[in-house]
């Protein structure tokens, strides 16, 4: 188990290095420059050259790469060339809002996904099952921005139950902590629901599918033959069997939730990571681009690894198979 973990870790670091190096050379090869930020550049080319020198962009690309890599290994992600402050602080302010949004969305995704999936599997081919499956397909097929819109239209405009955007109301910082939390939750409900529902369609389909598979398995039929209660069969045996593919899907959907929250972040004026990354790409803010790529890649790797571990913990056969397979 330990050697499996170590090997995976090694592979992950290698993967991270490959991705970041590729991003480094691609973004530097992309025409454009951090000094081209403004629509009306009054800068002369001499002034722009001076700026490039200050930020070290005039050095050979390989030298810049080595310098960047050395610093990054030490944990120094550099200074934003647009905001003139440490990248860690630029990203730091955006991490919590994004995690708050993605976390709440995940909770909704899990709740709705399992509810729909389990209910559908239990009422297989009955009207409820069909209705839930159609609904899942619709959640799954509709673009996130469309759902966002409908949510705002119905719950913020037609019935003004929730605010249409932002993370806090104007003046919320002067409220007592409890009222502030309530203000935050009110702002969180719409975007988190939209995001959670959009992803729940897929989860519901997988839960239903793997549950039906599990219910058809030999040991379930045996359990049933032994006279175990349906609830016990479902809760202990079937769900456990069904969980492992579902966990795979979840692991993949968490990074997707984090990056997918971008559209929601913008529709609902949510100050998160997606926006930071997009602005950095448009502004060619190289250090911020690289750091946000690294963050995204680490998330993908960590959740994939977590999924494999959970998968192995739930299903011993997988663990053996994984250990046997030489994963570099």
């Amino acid at each position, binding site marked *: 188990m330990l050697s499996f973990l170590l090997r995976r870790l090694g592979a992950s670091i290698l*993967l991270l290095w490959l*991705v970041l190096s590729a991003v480094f050379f*691609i973004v530097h*090869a992309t025409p454009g420059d951090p000094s081209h930020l403004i629509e009306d550049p009054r800068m002369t080319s001499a002034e722009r050259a001076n700026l490039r020198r200050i930020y070290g962009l005039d050095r050979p690309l390989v030298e810049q790469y080595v310098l960047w890599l050395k610093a990054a290994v030490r944990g120094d992600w550099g200074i934003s060339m647009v905001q003139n402050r440490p990248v860690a602080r630029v990203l730091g302010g955006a991490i919590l809002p994004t995690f708050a949004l993605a976390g709440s969305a995940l909770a909704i995704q899990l709740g709705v996904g399992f509810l729909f999936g389990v209910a559908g599997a239990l009422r297989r081919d009955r009207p409820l099952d069909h209705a839930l499956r159609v609904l899942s397909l619709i959640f799954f097929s509709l673009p996130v921005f469309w759902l966002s819109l409908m949510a705002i239209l119905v719950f913020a405009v037609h019935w003004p139950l929730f605010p249409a955007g932002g993370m806090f109301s104007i003046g919320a910082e002067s409220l007592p902590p409890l009222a502030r939390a309530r203000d935050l939750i009110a702002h969180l409900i719409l975007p988190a629901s939209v995001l959670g529902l959009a992803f729940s369609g897929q989860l519901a389909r997988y839960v239903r599918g793997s549950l039906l598979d599990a219910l058809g398995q030999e040991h379930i039929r045996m359990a049933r033959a032994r006279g175990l209660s349906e609830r016990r069969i479902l809760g202990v045996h079937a769900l456990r069997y069904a969980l492992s593919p579902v966990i795979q899907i979840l692991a993949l959907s968490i990074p997707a939730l984090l990056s997918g929250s971008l559209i929601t972040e913008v529709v609902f004026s949510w100050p998160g990571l997606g926006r930071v*990354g*997009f602005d950095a790409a448009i502004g060619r803010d190289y250090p911020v681009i690289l750091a946000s790529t690294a963050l*995204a890649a680490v998330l993908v790797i960590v959740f994939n690894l977590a999924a494999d571990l959970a998968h192995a913990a739930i299903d011993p056969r997988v663990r053996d198979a994984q250990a046997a397979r030489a994963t570099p």
Partner: protein
Amino acid sequence: MSERQMSGTLRVGLALIGLIGTIALAAPWLAPYDPNEQLDPAVGGLRPPGTRLAAVKLREGWLLADGVRRTPEGLEVDRRGRTDRLATAEVLNLTAEGVADSRYFPLGSDRFGRDLLSRLIYGARVSSVIALLTTALALTLGLAVGSLAALGGGMLDAVLMRTVDALLAFPDLFLVIALAALFRPSDALVVVVLVLANWMGVARVARAQIVTLKEREFVLAARGMGRGWLGIWWDHLLPNAFGPILVQAALLAGATILIEAVLSFLGLGIQPPRPSWGNMIAEGQNLLSSAWWIATFPGLAICVAVISLHLVGDGLRDRFDPRLRTTADS
């Protein structure tokens, strides 16, 4: 899940896709007008669905009018509340009652006075071609890499699949911006971007399928008979792996249509004036408050297309292997 119901899903999906395909193929015959004709934007622009305007033919082109009245001297035309008088000699399509021609906008017009129905029909053409090409190329590339990894095994497998992982972790946004900046925007570039961003999923599914199939009796038997991998791949592996891969392809095509819409916003979509559903939405976005119809109809078209591709994917999945839905995508 019964066979009958699933093929129903497949049938509905295929019927819808067939309909879209037919519209795309028959665009020149179905579209009432030239999709790029900008006829008199001052009067013809931003007209809601169902508007009919009189079309007055002049020597240097056309004038549109809310209404025309025949007078002894010629013609009185109402143009957005203003009345102009034209002499008999100026108007080339004069009749006893008014003018011989009219323009009808069943789905309304955009700000340049272009007919949205015609643009939607021609847009189906561009969007389907892009989806088809992208899917075919991503399928080919993914299948090739996935098969190579599965059959090569060992180092080759490791290198290829780690590359796929790296590309999956690579942010599409930078790829899009880099390609957009390095090359002149064109249709081919749109396809290249979509393929580069989407082939990895196919590769993973293809590899997973073939790794499993490779150990099955019929493959081992063929190996035992001394057949080479290429022959086995062609005769046994490919046909057996194709089902799940086709499912992947249907979903990919749906995703492609959505992403093309988004590319238009970054300036990397289909370049104007040619209509694609994506750039039609982009053009309509600033006008939603004054002309909701511009972005709404292509948006609906995209929704129908994506849902029908998902239906096909579902149908295929259950047809090829009901158990696949639990594993194919992981």
